[in-house]
């Protein structure tokens, strides 16, 4: 299945919603029932919950020791009521970091759409379940909306940092989460598409510059920031603000920007944050000790 966002919105008109269309097409193409497609997504949701639990462990450390255990700090701040972002977004960000750190520490995660950007979607969905009474069934439907948006981005541009920079990973993940949030708040399919475009627009140009080529710094922190982008994009669309650019064109713009990025800023670990002396030194010391 290769559909543009505009086509997904059209399919939603015929099928009732983007998620219904996505489930129907996925079932048909893989030769299984819609029930088993939904059961598979529910399984993925359960794995996301486990990843958050594992990632909140303050003793968690990655192979290099650069990341791990930091989500526990965010959780503590959230629990003390000090989070500047409030409970809903504060929770989404905490869970996003927990998932990203679980990933960095060789824990079990669900790529969404990639391992590097795996925290944004589960953070948003699980926070909505705990804070807004979203049921498991609704969460599963929202994940199909997110998957449909991810498919449009993957086929029209890229979801690989090596090809399109971090805008293609965290940008795509934020767009997917924004569209899912709109769905969960009762917004229209067009509003989901607009929210995806707003999220992508806000992360356009984001480079992929992992220190030492590893999925740690700045990756785990970008999962947090991109969560904020997803919520603000969803709020804009839900408030009735229409995206002034056709959403699919924003995806194409993302591809063009990615193509223009120098190789040093596309997952090679040479430019951007990866070139900063302070952390390069630290990583070198760690690796010499190993």
């Amino acid at each position, binding site marked *: 299945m290769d559909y543009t966002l505009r086509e997904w919105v059209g399919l939603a008109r015929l099928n009732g919603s983007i998620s219904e269309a996505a489930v129907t097409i996925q079932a048909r193409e893989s030769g299984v029932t819609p029930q088993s497609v939904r059961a598979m997504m529910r399984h993925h949701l359960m*794995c996301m919950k486990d990843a958050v639990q594992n990632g909140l462990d303050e003793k968690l450390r*990655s192979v290099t020791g650069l990341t791990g255990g930091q989500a526990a700090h965010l959780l503590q701040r959230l629990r003390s009521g000090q989070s500047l972002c409030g409970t809903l977004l504060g929770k989404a960000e905490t869970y996003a970091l927990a998932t990203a750190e679980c990933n960095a520490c060789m824990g079990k995660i669900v790529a969404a759409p990639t391992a590097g950007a795996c925290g944004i979607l589960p953070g948003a969905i699980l926070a909505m379940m705990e804070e807004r009474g979203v049921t498991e069934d609704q969460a599963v439907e929202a994940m199909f909306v997110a998957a449909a948006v991810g498919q449009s981005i993957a086929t029209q541009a890229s979801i690989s940092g090596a090809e399109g920079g971090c805008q293609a990973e965290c940008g795509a993940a934020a767009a997917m989460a924004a569209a899912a949030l709109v769905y969960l708040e009762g917004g229209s399919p067009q509003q989901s598409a607009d929210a995806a475009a707003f999220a992508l627009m806000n992360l356009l140009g984001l480079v992929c510059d992992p220190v030492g080529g590893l999925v740690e710094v700045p990756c785990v922190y970008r999962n947090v920031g991109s969560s904020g982008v997803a919520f603000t994009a969803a709020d804009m669309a839900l408030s009735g603000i229409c995206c002034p650019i056709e959403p699919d064109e924003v995806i194409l713009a993302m591809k063009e920007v990615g193509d223009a990025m120098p190789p040093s800023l596309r997952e090679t670990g040479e430019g951007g944050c990866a070139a900063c002396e302070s952390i390069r030194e630290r990583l070198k010391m760690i690796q010499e000790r190993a």
Partner: protein
Amino acid sequence: MDLFDLIGPVMIGPSSSHTAGAARIGLTARMLLGEKIVRAEIGLHGSFAKTYHGHGTDRAIVGGLLGMPVDDERLRDSLRIAREWGMAYFFHVVSIRGAHPNTVRLSITGESGAVLNMEAASVGGGNIEVHRLNGLQVNFTGKENTMIIRHVDIPGAIANVTGVLAGKGLNIANMQGYRREAGGDAMIVIELDGVPGEDTLEGIRALPCVQGVTFMRRRSDL
């Protein structure tokens, strides 16, 4: 495009290409050999050679060789488990001309003494491509039901094999033939819609031109 490629796979982190894809390469080699591995020579090329430690590429490949799938939490401890299970492994940095940056060159020995040589690349999102098998250039992904037939390059060899499949009502989705030279060692890689029974595999093994048959179920079923 499969929507579970956008939300999924469920995998051990941190990288779909450097960890999940690496584990899949190991697991594919293990399935193709079809028996417990006692010794593995693992050559890492390109980006794999540079960042394998931090990404756990080494543990992922070894875990795959031990038979662990991409979401197996034992992948983290696979180096220790390999020692416990009696699999010796040796890592080398290799440089393969024109190869994809995330390429692994494997030479593995099974408990019966059987040897398998394989070169495969992790091409993104946890997907892999096998590029060389026992000296022959091939190209398959393991995403579909895959049957690999080693045979002698004689007229009618392919027709005999496809005849057995047709007789069992199995549909061929994709087929490629490879050989080094006319009349020499050859290989057929067939992607099937269905899953062949043991009788089908025996039927193909019994053909005079055939030297060996291996079958791997499609990845989503594993």
